[in-house]
């Protein structure tokens, strides 16, 4: 693993929503090791700064895809990149989703907003390994229909056997789908607490509420994995910026078992 950013060239930019883009990047010279689903890169917009961004497509070391939402200086700069621009990349960092732990189980994916980005590789992986897992249920929550990521891809997942449910908080006039928070979808799909592994990513409040709803329906905390965000600087477990109690989330996370995360998330300031 290198801690020095390697130059990567932007080879494709696709606008996902008004403030999100997916960037496809390929190494200018040496490539980073392969990223597994759930792990992240430190992306360096030259002259602006560096931020952690998860991989939103995996499986090809020479081509990485990241989906970035513009919320501030660095992510704003990343979202303004054009094909041909060069950025710096280091990684892979963090723990990925423990897909081995989910083998043989049904997989329940719950994503809120940009949280679908690190879960997209999971969905693709599960669909690409029929027989390794049971059923696949994907629950997606977004603020408005315009904020939904990845265009028609969820429809492809549906056609490829996944149960996919989408809900929005604020429907527009043309929206005929579900309205309400993502937890309300838990009762709409067929999942069984005794044979399911749940993977959650999204705003932390959504994660807490979804996890509680899953526990209430009988899913044990150790069968729930959550991806947590904290501000990160080094990504390598040295600066302490990403601390959550005893965990350094760049190193011990971002994916953490809910049995470990639950007591930490209940504490107001750690």
């Amino acid at each position, binding site marked *: 693993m290198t801690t020095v950013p390697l130059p990567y060239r932007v080879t494709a930019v696709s606008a996902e929503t008004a403030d999100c883009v997916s960037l496809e990047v390929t190494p200018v010279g040496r490539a980073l090791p392969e990223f597994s689903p759930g792990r992240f890169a430190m992306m360096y917009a030259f002259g602006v700064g560096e931020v952690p961004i998860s991989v939103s497509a995996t499986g090809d070391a020479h081509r990485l895809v990241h989906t970035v939402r513009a919320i501030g200086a660095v992510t704003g700069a990343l979202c303004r990149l054009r094909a041909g621009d060069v950025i710096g990349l280091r990684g892979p960092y963090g723990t990925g989703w423990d897909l081995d732990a989910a083998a043989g189980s049904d997989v329940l994916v719950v994503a809120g907003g940009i949280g679908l980005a690190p879960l997209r590789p999971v969905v693709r992986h599960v669909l690409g390994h029929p027989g390794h897992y049971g059923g696949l249920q994907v629950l997606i929550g977004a603020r408005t229909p315009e904020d939904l990521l990845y265009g028609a891809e969820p429809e492809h997942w549906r056609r490829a056997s996944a149960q996919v449910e989408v809900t929005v*908080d604020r429907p527009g006039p043309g929206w005929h789908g579900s309205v309400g928070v993502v937890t309300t979808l838990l009762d709409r799909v067929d999942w069984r607490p005794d044979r399911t592994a749940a993977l959650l990513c999204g705003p932390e409040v959504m994660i807490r509420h979804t996890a509680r709803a899953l526990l209430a329906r009988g899913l044990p905390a150790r069968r729930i994995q959550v991806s947590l965000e904290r501000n990160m600087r080094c990504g390598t477990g040295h600066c302490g910026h990403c601390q959550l109690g005893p965990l350094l989330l760049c190193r011990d996370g971002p994916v953490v078992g809910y049995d470990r995360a639950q007591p930490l998330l209940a504490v107001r300031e750690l």
Partner: protein
Amino acid sequence: MTGWPLLLDTLPQVQRDRLFTLADERDFRAGSTLFDEGDVADRFWLIRSGEVALDVYVPGRRAQVVETLGPRQQLGWSWIFPPYRWHLGARALGPVRTWEFPAAEVRELCMADTELGYELMLRCAALIADRLQATRLRLLDLYTPHGSVPS
């Protein structure tokens, strides 16, 4: 998950049967209105299939959908408390199949069989708590950067 509506999911069979003696199967065509805001809440439904949108009428605008309900979910709790008026409107988004329950009879049954009444009210209270919690979460506008309360 069982195939039962959530209200009845873990209700003992005898109590479920007793409640079901009051139920009618009732289907709605796509686009039909189940009730309007302010109407008398004299029944409730358990949705078997299809989707129902709950909306609020805003003068000068289209009705705003605030939540959708689907299979296994309970439609309506305003029948439990006086003044028994719907707080929201409800329309069928597509064809909807339901079991329909008459409110007054269910309330009477709850009074006569307090054990069943208690069980049923516990479930209805949990449903109301869930809806309250969901509403609070949406008020937070979670998906804005920072996932927190608008400042």
